């Protein structure tokens, strides 16, 4: 299986820049996701790879072969679309066979291959059904089988799960990953759903405004966000504006409080930074009576609870701002609203990102509303 290389892809629709010199190399057999909000250019990138759009500048290579100017129907890319894309006039089997028929394979050979693939996607029993007789999840399975039937060099998936119910979505994403691993096919997956991207990918590419924000394994993207955007977009993140303190053991200062952060050791004292802290790494303990917390803990009052199943998200108002803390749901029962609690964390957990001087509104809901407002652009 060859790999896939995108070199300096640039694409503009009228005034709007959809992609800004995008470079990306997908290794042979690798599963890479393009992740970002609507309008970040992820779908445009995929469509350029598929040959449905033409980049204004840049090259696309499959293995060593430059396919930039090859028309879409000669690219040998399997594609699964966001909306249901089965041919309504053909049965599931005929849909899967369609690509083979174009390749002039013999009927028996085609039928064998189609049933093999429908088997692979768990739909051996649906060969004779028409698309309208299949559920959404089943249609996408058939679409996957159709894309795989032509033994594509690269598998492209454009939000294949976004039209499906949550439960089916989780199940199907696992199967897509299983099949991709089994066949060892190179895959490029587009999604706006970060959990989806993190759970199925070898590497995740976070895009914003047509540019790459960060490329890394799911654990890197989640654990070590490199930009303010990634920190805000991936998972839930407490973002605290702070200043690096001159402190050999590593610490920052926020709203007059000293916060121990190992990562601060390598930063210049006085630097304006954003301290990033995942809700699940904060330890929450109720304070008995009116004792104030000793040592390096933050104290605060519980503002609200949100039950999320395994964990309950507790919002605590502290001198350095509201902090989200994830507490196992069984323990959360003992923390009532208004209660005084202490918050501690391993000084090795927080990450720091340098803030440009004068940066504002990078923290808090305003930053998220800004994303929402980007949509109509």
């Amino acid at each position, binding site marked *: 299986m060859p790999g896939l290389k995108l070199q300096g892809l640039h694409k503009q629709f009228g005034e709007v820049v959809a992609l800004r010199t995008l470079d990306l190399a997908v290794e042979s057999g690798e599963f890479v996701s393009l992740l970002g909000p609507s309008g970040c250019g992820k779908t445009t990138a995929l469509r350029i790879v598929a040959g449905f759009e033409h980049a204004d500048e840049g090259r696309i290579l499959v293995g060593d072969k430059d396919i930039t100017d090859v028309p879409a*129907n000669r690219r040998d*890319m*399997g*594609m699964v679309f966001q909306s249901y*894309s089965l*041919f309504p006039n053909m049965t599931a089997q005929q849909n899967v066979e*369609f690509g083979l028929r*174009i390749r002039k394979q013999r009927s028996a050979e085609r039928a064998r291959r189609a049933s093999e693939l429908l088997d692979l996607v768990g739909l051996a029993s649906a060969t004779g059904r028409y698309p309208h007789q299949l559920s959404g999840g089943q249609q996408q399975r058939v679409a996957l089988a159709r894309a795989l039937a032509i033994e594509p060099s690269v598998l492209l998936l454009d939000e294949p799960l976004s039209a499906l119910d949550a439960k089916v979505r989780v199940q199907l994403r696992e199967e897509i990953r299983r099949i991709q691993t089994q066949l060892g096919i190179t895959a490029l997956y587009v999604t706006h759903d970060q959990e989806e991207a993190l759970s199925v990918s070898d590497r995740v590419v976070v895009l914003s405004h047509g540019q790459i924000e960060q490329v890394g394994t799911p654990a890197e993207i989640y654990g070590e966000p490199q930009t303010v955007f990634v920190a805000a977009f991936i998972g839930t993140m407490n973002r605290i504006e702070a200043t690096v303190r001159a402190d050999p053991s590593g610490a920052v200062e926020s709203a007059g409080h000293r916060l121990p952060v190992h990562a601060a050791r390598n930063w210049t004292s006085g630097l304006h930074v954003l301290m990033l802290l995942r809700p699940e790494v904060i330890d929450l303990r109720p304070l008995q009576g009116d004792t104030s917390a000793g040592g390096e803990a933050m104290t605060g009052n519980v503002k609200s609870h949100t039950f999320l199943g395994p964990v309950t998200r507790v919002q605590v108002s502290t001198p350095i701002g509201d902090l989200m803390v994830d507490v196992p749901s069984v323990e959360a029962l003992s923390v009532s609203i208004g209660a005084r609690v202490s918050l501690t964390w391993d000084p090795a957990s927080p990450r720091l990102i340098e803030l440009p001087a004068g940066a504002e509104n990078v923290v808090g809901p305003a930053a998220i509303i800004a994303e929402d407002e980007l949509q109509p652009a």
Partner: protein
Amino acid sequence: MRRPRIAPWSAFWLLLAVLYFLIPMYATAEFSLQTGNGQYGFDAYREILNDPSFKSSFLLSLRLAVETVLVSLIIMVPTVYWVHLKLPRLRRVMDFIAILPFMVPPITLAIGLLRELHPLVTVRQLTWLLSSPQQLILPYVIIVMPFTYRSLDAGMRAIDLRILTEAAQSVGASWLTILFRVILPNLRSALLSAAFLTITVVMGEFTIASLNQFQTFSVYIQYIGAAKANPAAALSIISFTLTWGLMLSILIIGRQRGSQQQAQIGTTR
């Protein structure tokens, strides 16, 4: 407390529409059977069916209709497909062009006048066309353009044209394969409706044909209508019956597809 599926007053509209066609139909049929003196009989029908002009004019119109269908589909299908696929911005322009032919009276007159302006046509080879009834196909293709366009446009809106095209491309299909194996089969009812509308319009077109002095079916009807009252009524009934078969067939085919689509729509609830 189960409620009926169809509200009574919508059935009223349906009834009204049907009555509106049935009463004139009945009156016409009744009149066509009159033989004078309050007697009834098939004299009028016999007279029409024995008239050689009936058969020749009907066949001429039918041939022109079928040729118009073929020419207009060959021109319009790729055009509308391309506009939908690649130039959605042009759709409004197309909508506009598609209603131009409704300004028929001046334009058809103009085309009729083209005959007077033969000298303008410098390409000599075209003269055979100008003297044969086939010259009618060109204006007819224009006249039916709105119907063809609207049928195709609605049909293509109903399926996800772009996704189907791209899905076919991604597994290696060429443009011809996509058109004939993916797009056309899913436009069946739109194509049928375009063809059907074209046939009825061409069969009924009078102005251009009569100005160009060709004896088409509608010109024949008009002639009979002006000349003989009872046979005209009989002719009405005959031509109504002839088109009816075509109507029903399209309705039945359309309904088959419709029930499939409804099944699909049902899943969205």
